[in-house]
């Protein structure tokens, strides 16, 4: 739903020129999308402090195009889930994710978002991938800003290699 992989088509449906144009188009759109990410910082806990550090000097995410946060899901394409998600917060997270338009990616920031962290109890969701599909997991409690930037770069590689369907389900 969120990260379409490139399907393997049977020989009869392949057309050389079309495939070539599709690939170039995917590279172009991928390049544009990966360098203009608009994160929605869904900040809850301690990782939010490291999010502030990574957005400010000297670790700047602006160099990667991922600086301008959009605090409305309608205008953002990267949902950064920063901090622990509790069961009380889970419907809110799901609602925000559903309100985002395609294409959208999810970055799980911190070990609490990745797997519940060391809160193995009645209150914390043991990993947001139980609720929303996740593209990149950045563990750490909290992760160093360099790790977050590494996560964003891995996400950018993923976006660059994806298939970007802009007209219909083939192109």
């Amino acid at each position, binding site marked *: 739903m969120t990260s379409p992989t490139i399907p393997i088509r049977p020989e009869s449906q392949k057309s050389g020129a079309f495939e070539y144009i599709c690939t170039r188009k995917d590279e172009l759109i991928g390049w544009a999308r990966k360098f203009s990410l608009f994160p929605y910082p869904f*900040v809850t*806990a301690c990782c939010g402090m490291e999010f*502030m550090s990574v957005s*400010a000097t*000297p670790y700047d995410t602006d160099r990667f195009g991922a600086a301008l946060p959009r605090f409305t899901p309608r205008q953002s394409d990267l949902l950064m889930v920063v901090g622990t998600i509790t069961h009380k*917060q889970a419907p809110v997270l799901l609602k925000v994710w559903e309100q985002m338009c395609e294409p959208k990616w999810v970055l799980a920031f911190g070990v609490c978002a990745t797997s519940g962290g*060391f809160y193995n109890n009645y209150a914390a969701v043991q990993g947001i991938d139980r609720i929303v599909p996740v593209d990149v997991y950045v563990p750490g409690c909290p992760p160093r800003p360099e790790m977050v930037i590494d996560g964003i770069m891995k996400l950018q590689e993923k976006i660059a290699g994806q298939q970007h369907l802009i007209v219909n389900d083939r192109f």
Partner: protein
Amino acid sequence: MDSKLPNPIRPAFTRNERDDTTIVNIGPSHPATHGTIQIVAELDGERILRADVHCGYLHRGFEKECEAHTWHNLIPYVDRLNYCSALINNFAYCETVERLMGIEVTPRTKYLRTLLAEYSRVADHLTCVAAALMELGAMTAFLYLVMLRDYIYEHLADLTGARLTYSYGRIGGLARDLPDGWLKRLEEILVEYEEFVGRVHGLVDRNRIFIDRMRNVACLSTADAINWGYTGPILRSTGVPRDLRKDTPYLAYAELDFEVPTGIKGDNYDRYYVRMREMDESVHMIRQLVDLLHEKGGGPLNVDDRRCVLPDKTLVYGEIESLINHFKLVMEGPQVPAGDIYVAHEGANGELGFYIVSTGGGTPYKVHCRAPSFVHMGGAHKMLEGHQLADIVPTFGSINMIGGECDR
């Protein structure tokens, strides 16, 4: 996907008081409410008539987790309460357990803990002021203060190993001693502090827009503040110099010379200014403590008590008594005598108290944290009602609600 998601809260009011008012929902995923507070407000145009503040979106079960770990193992959980000034939480908890065990820490630990507590307080106030200013639109001030805060994080990472959640306090002392050159770098950072904070003062203090947005907004009287349980900078901004560091001195505060800054009328501007002045006082205290460390802070770091302090590694590998001591401390935890105690420190937000109940084992029976942010949220509606919707932003910024502490 289900189109109807369950509502985790039940608002206090769902029907309008009058025909021309609207009920809106603000949060919980909202930048102004720091991501974990939901406000259901009834508005008359832009003016808030009633506000119902909901917290709990970051309730992570701290108390229940503590009952399943040993007294030492739960120190990382304590860190993540007020994560902006994690060292203060560490030391408050450690002192609570030490008092119940009847342990008195060494002078070196006392001075170092005080120094690091004040350092953490500076980091917390920097975060609060930076976030408050950014939400008002002053990005430059935010970048200056966060740059300085980053220097502090890297410096503390040299000492403790982590930038944000240090787990540095230990029952009976500290995890490790200062590395070489740490105090020299501390002085450099304090000089940078004066430079950066001076610039922020110049940008913001007498700025027409800032004064218009913060002066006379969300005033709180002293009687109201004490009735609703406010402590810390918010209580001090109403004009009373109540500070646990002066009133009931703990650690090394009795030996230090510092003032308690107070405000005039308890509005947002006063809370901002009290925090800025408190940072200056903290820096003054840190400089005094560096001198005290050199003069009187020699000697061992950890108290020589085998009930809680891990023995030296060479002894652990060499003799059987230390090996067993180490084993028991790690597997069962320090044995704390039965009883209960409540110890309160002056956290960055106010009275941070730990109430622990022990039944004489290595794991606690109950660890309760009296969180200042939680109590402050109880009275937040008093500061919001009657003001405009846009005033929520500076008011919340000046209350400094830390989610980890509020919801625990």
